[in-house]
């Protein structure tokens, strides 16, 4: 620590060069932070504690195949199931068919299964009592400037109502808030399944999927198997998964986010190593005579080695911390501009640890060769300029 001043001085010996290099490093770590935030955001989707206790049951044939409503009572009777809710895909769009809003037609207890969704008690009551009411997520409400009490027309892409028209009219009775931004319901609309089933001639008592909560997390696998056993060899076989597994599977089908992020970062850091490595080589070469003087006045070879290494690590750490700090500032913008794809982008402690670890590792790699040379420096030759 007592040499920090010396290291700092040698780092900023050539201000332009160090600052230019620093900007490159900041750019690299900025990219690292952004991509890692995206990766973590996808990796953590559905990983909440609430998600672990929820099981999703859908038709084994395909996810668009409906299940009979009677299955719900059977699932509820399975040992280890706390409660069962169900939902149907409605497929709403507002004003223009391209303004799609995820809309589910749900059972009365649907919101109880998702304790991370918060609805004001009086709004919840009003919704429960109504037939034609809907609850909308806070993101949607904000986006379209709706107010509680508004009449909201929604187009379904699939289901006509009683009149044969695909334009449905609803009354907005409440807003769904999301605790810790972890509930996807903040970006969607729920309506009553009863209303849906009675209005559309096509549904006839069918249910899209069931969501059940288990009483004991460790029993989740057994419960999932017993639920699937209920309908084995029937014409509506089911597939039950924990919400975590289902989300993970879905993301995996979207894209191998991890692979994309890793390969981009590989290219970025490879370039960074070369770039800053070159700077460090230059910096040490320039200072050959100074280093010789240091040795002459009594610095040991090892402390010279340590000082050069510390210098490159310091350079990388400076860039890395500033870069990741910038990401922390930018993350809220990223979240709001991604339109719901990325739910809670932020630089978590894990990303910080990984970033700082990378900075130190790269610093050691690029400092290695110049430091080795500085250590092996022959005082007489160096002072003579040979």
């Amino acid at each position: 620590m007592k040499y920090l001043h010396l290291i700092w001085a040698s780092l900023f010996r050539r201000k332009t060069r160090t600052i230019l290099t620093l900007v490159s490093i900041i750019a690299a770590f900025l990219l690292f932070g952004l991509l890692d935030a995206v990766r973590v955001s996808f990796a953590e989707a559905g990983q909440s504690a609430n998600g672990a206790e929820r099981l999703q049951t859908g038709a084994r044939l395909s996810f668009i195949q409906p299940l009979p409503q009677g299955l719900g009572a059977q699932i509820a009777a399975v040992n280890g199931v706390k409660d069962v809710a169900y939902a149907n895909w409605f497929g709403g769009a507002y004003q223009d068919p391209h303004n799609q809003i995820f809309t589910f037609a749900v059972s009365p207890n649907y919101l109880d299964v998702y304790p991370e969704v918060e609805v004001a008690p009086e709004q919840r009551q009003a919704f429960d009592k109504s037939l034609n009411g809907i609850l909308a997520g806070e993101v949607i409400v904000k986006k379209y400037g709706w107010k509680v009490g508004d009449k909201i027309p929604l187009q379904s892409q699939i289901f006509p109502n009683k009149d044969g028209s695909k334009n449905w009219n609803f009354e907005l009775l409440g807003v769904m808030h999301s605790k810790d931004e972890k509930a996807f319901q903040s970006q969607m609309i729920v309506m009553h399944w009863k209303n849906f089933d009675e209005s559309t001639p096509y549904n006839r008592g069918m249910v899209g999927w069931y969501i059940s909560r288990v009483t004991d997390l460790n029993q989740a696998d057994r419960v999932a198997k017993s639920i699937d056993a209920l309908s084995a060899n029937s014409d509506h076989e089911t597939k039950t998964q924990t919400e975590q597994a289902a989300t993970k599977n879905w993301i995996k089908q979207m894209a191998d986010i991890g692979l994309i992020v890793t390969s981009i970062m590989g290219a970025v850091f490879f370039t960074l190593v070369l770039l800053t490595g070159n700077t460090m080589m230059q910096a040490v070469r320039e200072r050959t005579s100074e280093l010789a003087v240091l040795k002459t006045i009594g610095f040991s070879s090892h402390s010279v080695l340590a000082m050069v290494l510390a210098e490159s690590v310091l350079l990388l750490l400076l860039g890395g911390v500033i870069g990741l700090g910038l990401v922390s500032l930018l993350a809220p913008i990223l979240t709001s501009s991604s339109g719901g794809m990325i739910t809670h982008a932020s630089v978590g402690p894990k990303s910080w640890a990984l970033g700082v670890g990378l900075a130190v590792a790269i610093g050691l790699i690029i400092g290695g060769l110049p430091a080795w040379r500085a250590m092996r420096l022959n005082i007489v030759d160096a002072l003579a300029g040979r």
Partner: protein
Amino acid sequence: MKFLIGLLTFVVVIAGVALFLSLPWPGLLVLLVVLALWMWLTRHGRQAASITAVGVSTMAQRLGSSAVIVIGIAGVVGVLVAMFAMAEGYSETLRRTGSEDTAIVMRGASAAEVSSVLDHDSALVIAQAPGIAKDDHGKPIASPELVVAANLPMKGGNPEEDFGSVQLRGIGDEAWQLRTNAKIIAGRKFEPGKYELVAGKGAQRQFAGLEPGKEIKLGNQKWTVTGIFASNDAMDSELWADAGVVGPAYRRGSSVTTVFARLTGPAAFDQFKAALSSDPRLQVDATTTLDYFSKQSEGTSKAITIIGIVVGVIMAIGAVFGALNTMFAAIAARAREIATLRAIGFRGLPVVMAVMLETMMLALIGGALGGALAWLIFNGYTASTLAAGTTGQLTFEFRVTPSLLWVGLKWALAIGFIGGLFPALRAARLPVTTALREL
């Protein structure tokens, strides 16, 4: 004041680069010719050429730092071209699926095939619409198809847990007539009326067990895979079976989701569409398949392109500063030489041009290297994603096209330009006397 001038230069440079990036290739050619003529014909030009020659000949001594520019820019261009190639491959695959002389008919306001339903009678009515081409027996080439989603275990995953979604298309004989590009490449076609299916080669790559002669389980029903087909478009990611079997198996009866029709020509579409929309028995939307599939790819390819540009810009900022660093160092090392030239009568402009040319040359090498790497690694690379508007995985190949490589080279030159300009200006402004005295 100095800061203001610097800022102004910077703004002008950024505006110039933006202009340059949107320049088509003839524009650049003109620029190149003008530059060559200048170097050939004018005194300043010849001076610039000779200084550049000196710079290039001494580059070998600065191999390490020159490599920084080359590799830094190669990294940017490589990543950028790879991302663009992904977007291009995705939209190209879907675009190829459609053509101007085939039409797709779905129930009104359906965004995608899976959300449409047409009853058997409507499908028959649609097939009789004017404008549809007839086959040798005088039958209209219109194919009512039923698209459903199926779950299959993914290749290389846990067969109990890792299920992926694939589109199962129930078709009739007309479908093969309509899609002349779809060919069986292994095994045979399915037989009507049986639980048999053929798999696209993209689906085969993605899902486990899709080999001719093998059985797969969809729901509680066993299907035999009789063959593999290739069509080199989005259909490659699907499974095809007899519509008469798929319907009952998925409890859809005799209804279909879509009717595809081959028209007598692109011009016949308006007549076809008008006939359908005026028919009181129908409530359907008709689009050319080209329109339909292009629209499906729009959002996704735009998103990939934007991500590519954001990543590219951040990387480019890093590369610009790397190049600046290298060139400042190069100028500093050659300060005496440049001052000597200035002292014996060389003017500022040739010095600026020489430094710029040297940087741009390195940038060009870097751009070519990055483009070549992207082409070698990613051209034809197969990826898949859950496609927008379908319920299945869409397999597509990255496409590194010449126009993408050209975009990559332009980025490289732009980075080289910014990275060279400021060191060049410094070189030209170097006070001769101080520089000569410097070590």
